């Protein structure tokens, strides 16, 4: 026999007959002897009728339409997002996109590269700044320039003669003597007088000497060129910031198409050396004055001189 408390939990399920056979039997037995629980059952049944009597509410008018309108709005929103991210309805394989992307990227890189190349190419020709060691003085650079010039000349001269003018003269004499000997030899067969042939030989020698003239002319032009380069100008530039000024001067030198720029660093000064066109020298000096206090030592170079070896000593203002 179950107590009221145990049955209390089962009574509500007894009402709609959802108890198992065993529980149902126990409840029925209990109800027979318990008026309280019997009353509870009655109340539960009444409650059930009340609940069953509840009316269903109807949806408001246009409820379905309202819902569908909202559903369609959602769909449009979704489609909009889809269109935004996948603007193409046709499904183009991703590989095609990748290929196009790479092609465009490659073209872009190529273009930028070309621009950079142009920048590099359009810079004033060879202005390599050589950092010379302490003690490696301008003479050394001069030597290299000389060597270069000499090389050019010697190749030109080779066509005419192998050595310098003096050597050529010795050769010529040799030639003449040979000619005389040969003349004498031919004389044996032709019977011509030896004196005449000697005269002839001398004329020929003079002619040959003339043919050596271009070599001599080249020699002179070479000397002149050397002279041109060797016109030197020494200036002192006093500045507050040596390093910054050096950079500025280097830029300036490049701008003025200076060649063979070299830099020498010492404890308290920086010496820049370059070969500058004389015609541009005055303008360059004006520019240098804007960087620092410019001091010129010695005579300004002759106007006839084409190139100047310019030595700029950049010093800190004391």
């Amino acid at each position, binding site marked *: 026999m179950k107590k009221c408390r145990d049955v209390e939990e089962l009574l509500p*399920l007894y009402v709609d007959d*959802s108890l198992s056979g065993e529980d149902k039997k126990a409840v029925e037995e209990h109800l027979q002897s318990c008026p309280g629980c019997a009353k509870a059952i009655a*109340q539960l049944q009444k409650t059930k009728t009340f609940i069953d009597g*509840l009316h269903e509410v109807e949806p408001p008018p246009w409820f379905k339409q309202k819902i569908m309108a909202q559903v369609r709005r959602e769909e449009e929103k979704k489609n909009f997002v889809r269109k935004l991210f996948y603007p193409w309805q046709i499904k183009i394989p991703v590989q095609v996109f990748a290929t196009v992307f790479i092609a465009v990227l490659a073209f872009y890189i190529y273009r930028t590269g070309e621009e950079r190349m142009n920048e590099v190419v359009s810079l004033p020709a060879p202005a390599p700044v050589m950092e010379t060691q302490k003690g490696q003085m301008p003479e050394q650079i001069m030597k290299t320039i000389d060597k270069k010039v000499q090389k050019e000349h010697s190749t030109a001269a080779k066509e005419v003669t192998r050595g310098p003018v003096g050597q050529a003269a010795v050769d010529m004499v040799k030639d003449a003597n040979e000619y005389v000997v040969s003349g004498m030899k031919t004389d044996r067969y032709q019977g011509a007088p030896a004196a005449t042939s000697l005269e002839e030989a001398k004329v020929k020698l003079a002619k040959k000497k003339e043919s050596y003239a271009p070599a001599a002319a080249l020699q002179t032009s070479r000397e002149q060129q050397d002279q041109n380069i060797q016109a030197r100008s020494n200036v002192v530039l006093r500045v507050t910031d040596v390093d910054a000024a050096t950079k500025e001067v280097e830029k300036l030198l490049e701008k003025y198409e200076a060649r063979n720029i070299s830099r020498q660093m010492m404890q308290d000064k920086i010496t820049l050396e370059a070969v500058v066109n004389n015609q541009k020298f005055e303008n360059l000096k004006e520019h240098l004055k804007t960087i620092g206090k410019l001091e010129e030592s010695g005579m300004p170079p002759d106007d006839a001189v084409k190139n100047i070896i310019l030595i700029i000593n950049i010093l800190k203002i004391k």
Partner: protein
Amino acid sequence: MRMSNISNSKKAAARDDDLQYVILCQKGKTDAFEVLVERHQKKMLNIAYRMMGDYNDACDVTQEAFIAAYKSIKKFKAEAKFSTWLYRIVVNLAKNRLKQLSGRKRREGPLDDQAGNNNEEISGQSFIGESDPGVQLENREREFNVQKCITSLDEEYREVLVLRDIQGFSYEEIQDMLKIPDGTVKSRLARARNALKDCLSKVIGDL
């Protein structure tokens, strides 16, 4: 046990009349959803109404539930009946809304009168068929009290009571909807009925 549940659900799904429309919706045919709304709107609304006790709130929640269902219709895997899935959504949304409302009520103070009037008006609709004005009034008052008692129940009791006693779902369906075991459904239902009985005895007097 679990296995049998699944097979039951599958059997149920196999008989699901909604499934063809659900599949159409999943393929992007929006119009197919209209059929589903048409079929379920009344039941959805009534579940929400009995859970919440306020007609306008119930309409809002029902609408919200349909939209939510549409948005996630692709996630519906036909493991249970579509209706079960749909009603679960409305029950959960109603519970969430009630939590929000109770929070607001606590902050702003009770607005019972307004809600009460509104509900009487709405429930008035249902008694048009009744000719006797006296009986009409009595029915209306009784219904109002019953609803008041339902609304006073704890949430977990209310939902089983609404689903079983008002909507007449089977224990199995309720299990699926609320995702609680069979025993729990029964014990909650027993407590819900007792609590409702006690509430009605208090409000109406001797039953």
